[in-house]
C-alpha cells in the first residue's frame, strides 16, 4: 500500500469488488454483503485486540448500530443507506464512549466478561421491550442510495453490496493506515508491555479507550449494514453467539492484515452456508474443527500468510515482579 498510495489501492479494490459482484449469482452477492458487514465489526475487534484487549460483547455495538438504523427508518422515515450506516456507527460510538469508563482498568478475562455481560443485558432488555418489537424484532424496508432507489430485489441486493463494499474498503484502508501509524504501533506496544509504555511517557489507558470507542463505532456500522441486508432487526444481534462469531473471526484473521479479516469473514460465511446445507445438524462442529485447525497450524491467523513479520512472541509482557 505504501508504494501505490492508499487512495489508489482503495479505488482499485472497490472497482474489483463491484465488478466481481456484478457477475456473481445473487446468493454470493448476499453472502459477501453479510461477510463484509460482519468483517467490519471483526475489524474493530482486531483493532481492540492489537491493544491486548478481547471483547466478548461486540454484539452490543453490532446490535446498537442495527437498531439505530432500523429505528431511524421506522420512526424518522430515514431511508438513505449512507445516513443510516453513519447513524448506526455514531450511536454505537457514543454508547462505547458512555460505557468505556465502566471498563477502564479491567484487563484480560475480566474485561471480556464485562463486555459479554453488558451485551447480554442489552439482549435481555430488547427481548422484553415490546415497543421495539420484543423478541420478534422489526422488519425494515429497503433503503435508498443517495438518489438511487432500486426497482427490483436483485438490483437492491447488488446496490447494497456495492455500498457495503465501499464502506468496507474505506474502513479497511483507514485501519491499515492506522495500524502503521505511531498510535497504531502504540497499541501493539501496550499489549506487549504496559509498564514500558507508561515509562516512555504514553498512557495505556488512553490507548485502550481510543481502541474501544473506535471498535464500537465499527461494530455499529457493521450492524447497520447487516440490518439493511437482512431487512430485519431483532435482539439476536446482541446475543452471545454473534459476539462469539466476531471473536472467532478476529482469531481466524489474526492482527497483521486487514484484508485477512474480510477473507476470514467470507470463508466463515461459506463454511456456514455449505455445512448447514450438507450437514444441517452439525455445522457448529465443522466450525469448531475449522477453528481448531487454525489455532494449531496458523496461530497468528490467516493474516500471517499474507504478511510476513516477526516470529510470534515467546512470552507476553513480563510480570510486574520483574521490575525488582
Amino acid at each position, binding site marked *: 500500500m*505504501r508504494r501505490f498510495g492508499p487512495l489508489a489501492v482503495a479505488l482499485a479494490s472497490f472497482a474489483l469488488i463491484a465488478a466481481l459482484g456484478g457477475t456473481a449469482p445473487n446468493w454470493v452477492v448476499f453472502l459477501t454483503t453479510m461477510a463484509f458487514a460482519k468483517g467490519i465489526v471483526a475489524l474493530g475487534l482486531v483493532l481492540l485486540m492489537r491493544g491486548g484487549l478481547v471483547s466478548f460483547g461486540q454484539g452490543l455495538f453490532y446490535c446498537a448500530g442495527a437498531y439505530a438504523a432500523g429505528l431511524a427508518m421506522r420512526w424518522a422515515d430515514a431511508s438513505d443507506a449512507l445516513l443510516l450506516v453513519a447513524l448506526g456507527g455514531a450511536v454505537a460510538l457514543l454508547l462505547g464512549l458512555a460505557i468505556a469508563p465502566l471498563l477502564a482498568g479491567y484487563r484480560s478475562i475480566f474485561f471480556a466478561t464485562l463486555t459479554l455481560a453488558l451485551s447480554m443485558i442489552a439482549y435481555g432488555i430488547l427481548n422484553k421491550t415490546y415497543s421495539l418489537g420484543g423478541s420478534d424484532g422489526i422488519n425494515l424496508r429497503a433503503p435508498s442510495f443517495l438518489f438511487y432507489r432500486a426497482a427490483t430485489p436483485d438490483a437492491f441486493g447488488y446496490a447494497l453490496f456495492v455500498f457495503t463494499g465501499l464502506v468496507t474498503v474505506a474502513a479497511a484502508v*483507514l485501519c491499515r*493506515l*492506522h495500524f*502503521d*501509524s*505511531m*498510535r*497504531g*504501533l*502504540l497499541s*501493539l*506496544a501496550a*499489549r*506487549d*508491555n504496559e*509498564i*514500558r509504555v*507508561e*515509562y*516512555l*511517557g*504514553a*498512557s495505556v489507558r488512553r490507548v485502550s479507550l481510543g481502541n474501544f470507542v473506535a471498535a464500537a463505532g465499527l461494530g455499529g456500522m457493521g450492524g447497520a449494514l447487516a440490518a439493511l441486508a437482512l431487512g430485519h432487526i431483532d435482539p439476536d444481534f446482541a446475543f452471545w453467539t454473534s459476539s462469539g462469531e466476531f471473536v472467532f473471526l478476529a482469531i481466524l484473521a489474526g492482527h497483521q492484515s486487514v484484508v485477512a479479516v474480510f477473507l476470514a469473514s467470507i470463508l466463515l460465511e461459506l463454511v456456514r452456508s455449505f455445512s448447514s446445507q450438507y450437514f444441517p445438524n452439525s455445522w457448529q462442529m465443522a466450525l469448531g474443527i475449522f477453528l481448531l485447525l487454525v489455532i494449531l497450524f496458523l496461530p497468528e491467523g490467516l493474516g500471517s500468510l499474507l504478511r510476513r513479520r*516477526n*516470529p*510470534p*512472541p*515467546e*512470552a*507476553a*509482557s*513480563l510480570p510486574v515482579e*520483574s*521490575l*525488582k
Partner: protein
Amino acid sequence: MTALIEARGLHKSFGAVVAARDVSVMARRGERVGLIGNNGAGKTTFVNMVTGYVKPDRGSILLDGIDITGLPPRVVSRHGVSRSFQMPQLFQSMTPEENMLMALGIARSERLSSWRDARTPDLMAELHDLLARFRLGEYRDRSIAALPGGVRKLVDIAMAVTRRPKLLLLDEPTSGVAAEEKFPLMDVIMSALAGGEVAVLFVEHDMEIVARYAERVLAFYDGRVIADDIPTTVLGNEEVQRYVTGIVQ
C-alpha cells in the same frame, strides 16, 4: 553548583520489610554515580521511587527544584527522568528497531498521529543515529527473544535515552552479561551517553566496574545509605567492606 536531583528522607516499607529508611541522595548535572549494595538492600526501590513506580511513604524528591514526589512514571519521564530495568522491559513482539522507533515517536510528539506512517524520515534518521550510537545496527531486525542479554540491555537503555533525560537511572546494566563482556558493554553505554549533560546513576554489583565508571559511589545496606563519597573512599570504608563488598582486610 546546585543539585539536579535531590531526594530527602525517603522512607518506604512493604509490610514488615523496610526497603528504604531515611534515604537522602543528591546528584549534580552530568555526574556519574554508582549505587552498590547487596541483594535486597533497597537499590531498585530507590530507583522505583525516583521514577514514580513506587510512592515513598515519606520524604521528597526534587528534580531541578521541582517536586516530583509521587508522580506516576509517565509524568516523571516527561520531567526528564528515564530509567532502564534490571530485567529489560521491551516490546517482545516487535524488533529492536521498532522498539526504539516507538520510544522515539512518543518522545518527539505530544500527540501521536493516528494516520501518518510511523516511519517518518525525521524519526528514521534519528533512529539510525541511535542504532549507531548503541552499536545496535546488526540487531535491528532480530526478534527480541533471540537477542543476547547484553544487547537487550542496550536496547532497553537506548529506549530510555530517547527523551534526552536530565537524569538516567540504570538498574544493573551489566547483570546477566558474561564477565568478559561487562567492560565492553559499559564502554558502549558510557560512550553513547557522552557529550550530554545527563546525570547517570547506575546500580552495579561488580566493584571493578564501579571503580572504573563512577565518579561517586553510594552504598546501600538494609534500606539505608551507609556511605556516599568518591569510589576509593567508599570501597575502602570498613562498613562497606563488611556489609557490601565482603572484602575484609
